[in-house]
């Protein structure tokens, strides 16, 4: 447990910079909330006419209520060092506004065009909110360290450590769940030849050797000197659920290579290396627990987050 703690990557200066940028975005949204909330609160009638909602007594109260919510959100955002939760309240608030405007649009007595414009404005803000909210809440991004990209993820597998370690120890098994690997082959003197798929039907290859091997606890490997893609990885196994299950922690690091294979390798590890690793360990869990990678009509190749944006329709393929 202790060394797991120790290997936690320290936040580097680039991550710090990114956070400052996001904080600025968050703060700006906070002020936007105040800009929106104050007129809603003190001049709801004017605000209603401006956005084209029927200025009834009841609608004025509604607008005031929304104003209070905006100000509450603003206070929350401006008050926090890392304002994730309150930002999310803004996102939800926006969704609520959009729905109200949608409802108003259906009523015959509201000037449609003005309501539409207001909806578009809120929708615009919603998008910014979602981006800001997603960005500030992502804390476990891969970090860089001396030029290498590193990431780690963990999952609980409902099999005993011996079994889980045993499966992983046969590196030939890795392509069964690591989507970008084509094959891993044992060579003489304890070396392994890794072949990974790259875009346009190409492949990237390297040789690696095991650096540390503690049965049922740890396997660590590193690519050999002179590889196109300098990389290393480790996987730790710790008993869980009284020894019936295993906590598996995977850590990978690679040096972004020279220009020649650079683009291919970047694609191979994916734009989101962490997401890819998460997918890999999820497939590993599926293979260990259920015997194979689980497929659906929408995701016929099994878990692969990159594909989730491009789902096949949920019906059988031709």
């Amino acid at each position: 447990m202790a060394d797991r703690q120790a290997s936690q990557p320290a936040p580097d200066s680039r991550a710090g910079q990114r956070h400052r940028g996001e904080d600025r975005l968050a703060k700006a949204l906070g002020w936007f909330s105040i800009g929106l909330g104050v007129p809603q609160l003190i001049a709801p009638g004017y605000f209603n006419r401006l956005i084209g909602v029927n200025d009834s007594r009841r609608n004025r109260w509604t607008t005031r209520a929304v104003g209070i919510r905006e100000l509450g959100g603003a206070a929350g955002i401006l008050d926090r060092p890392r304002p994730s939760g309150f930002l999310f309240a803004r996102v939800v608030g926006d969704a609520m506004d959009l729905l109200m405007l949608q409802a108003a649009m259906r009523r015959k007595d509201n000037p449609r065009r003005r309501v539409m414009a207001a909806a578009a404005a809120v929708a615009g803000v919603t998008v910014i909110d979602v981006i800001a909210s997603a960005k500030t809440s992502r804390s476990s991004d891969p970090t860089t360290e001396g030029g290498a990209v590193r990431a780690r993820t963990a999952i609980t597998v409902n099999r005993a450590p011996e079994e889980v370690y045993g499966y992983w120890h046969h590196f030939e098994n890795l392509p069964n769940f690591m989507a970008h690997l084509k094959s891993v082959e044992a060579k003489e003197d304890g070396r392994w030849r890794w072949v990974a798929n790259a875009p346009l039907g190409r492949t990237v290859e390297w040789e690696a050797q095991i650096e540390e091997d503690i049965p049922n606890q740890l396997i660590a490997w590193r690519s050999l000197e002179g590889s196109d893609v300098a990389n290393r990885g480790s996987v730790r196994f710790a008993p869980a659920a009284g020894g019936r299950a295993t906590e598996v922690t995977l850590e990978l690091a690679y040096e972004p290579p020279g220009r020649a294979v650079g683009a291919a390798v970047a694609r191979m590890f994916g734009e989101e290396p962490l997401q890819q690793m998460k997918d890999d360990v999820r497939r590993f869990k599926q293979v260990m627990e259920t015997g194979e990678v689980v497929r659906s009509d929408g995701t016929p190749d099994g878990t692969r987050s990159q594909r989730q944006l491009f789902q096949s329709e949920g019906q059988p393929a031709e």
Partner: protein
Amino acid sequence: MKATCWMGVHRVKVNDVPDPRILNDRDAIVRITSTAICGSDLHLVGGYVPTMEKGDILGHEFMGEVVELGKAVTNLAVGDRVVVPFPIACGNCLSCERGLYSLCENSNPNAGMAEKAWGSSPAGIFGYSHMLGGFAGGQAEYARVPFADVGPIKIEDDSLSDEQVLFLSDIFPTGYMGAEVCDIQPGDTVAVWGAGPVGQFAVASAYLLGAERVIAIDRFPYRLQMARDKAGAETLNYEEVDVREALRDLTAGRGPDACIEAVGLEAHHGSGPINAYDKVKQAMRLETERPHALRQAITSCRNGGTVSIMGVFGGMIDKFPIGSVMNRSLTIKTGQCHVQRYMRPLLERIQSGEIDPRFVITHRMSLAEAARGYDMFKNKKDQCTKVVLSP
């Protein structure tokens, strides 16, 4: 084959689509003999659940005959008659081992999507959006059933008709779980919001589990009549009475010991201004997240009682009365039903004649007429409560 497809918000169409194939060794292909439309399908069709794609096959309540088996399924044979539970579950993960099948850790290949929305992912479900797996549904002639060695229950008793056992796939276990999680004690009064199919089974199950009185709440007289005549409930029409007051009267000021919410995210607004929250909400004319019934269930429940949420919710709700929950020591129980856990014991109750699930069926039609079925069920036309389709 023919299949009922989601073609956009409020657009359902029966299309010709390719036949399903075995994709995993533990799959089965089932030729569907009966399938039903669920209140959850209405949420999907209404566009309230994100990540639906045009062309997705709907339906998660179905049964039929096994026509093909993956090589790892050894407990079923071609020709077996099976009812398929709606959550897809592997039977191997820690959640499945604990009987929490609708939380299977392996059956959602799009778990990453659900994690973004909810923090962690539940199980995959047939015909229930891509964030719950992108699995083709069962309102079709055939369906692929993953983990067929774990989920489907074989119906060996040929004297049982499809209609008697079909609802083991979802709404009977769901209503039953809604009541079971309330830990009903002899003498208890249970209130059920929603007299749709799930609410009807919640009423019947509360009696099976020993409740003394069950009160059903809805606004459609014909559904309330079904709850009264077929399930034995007392009824309240929320358009005619102030529900919270009425429940207090019926329980001499205590409030029901357990409150089951079987309405979900499309709850309709009551007419009477019941409390300040509702007034504000009504004024806001919110359209999607309408937790009206849920709030009422919470504020009506007796101190220290249980609120069981069986209605489906997708995102966030506004003005959730957490103060009422916290200060009055309420227990909230909820979840997609862990159907696999209930199929066998409930089949036994059907066989022993303790309950005949057919009482909720009001309409039977062919699969080709699915779009008409959706319209009738959604708009309560012709006193519709439950539609069964036969391919």
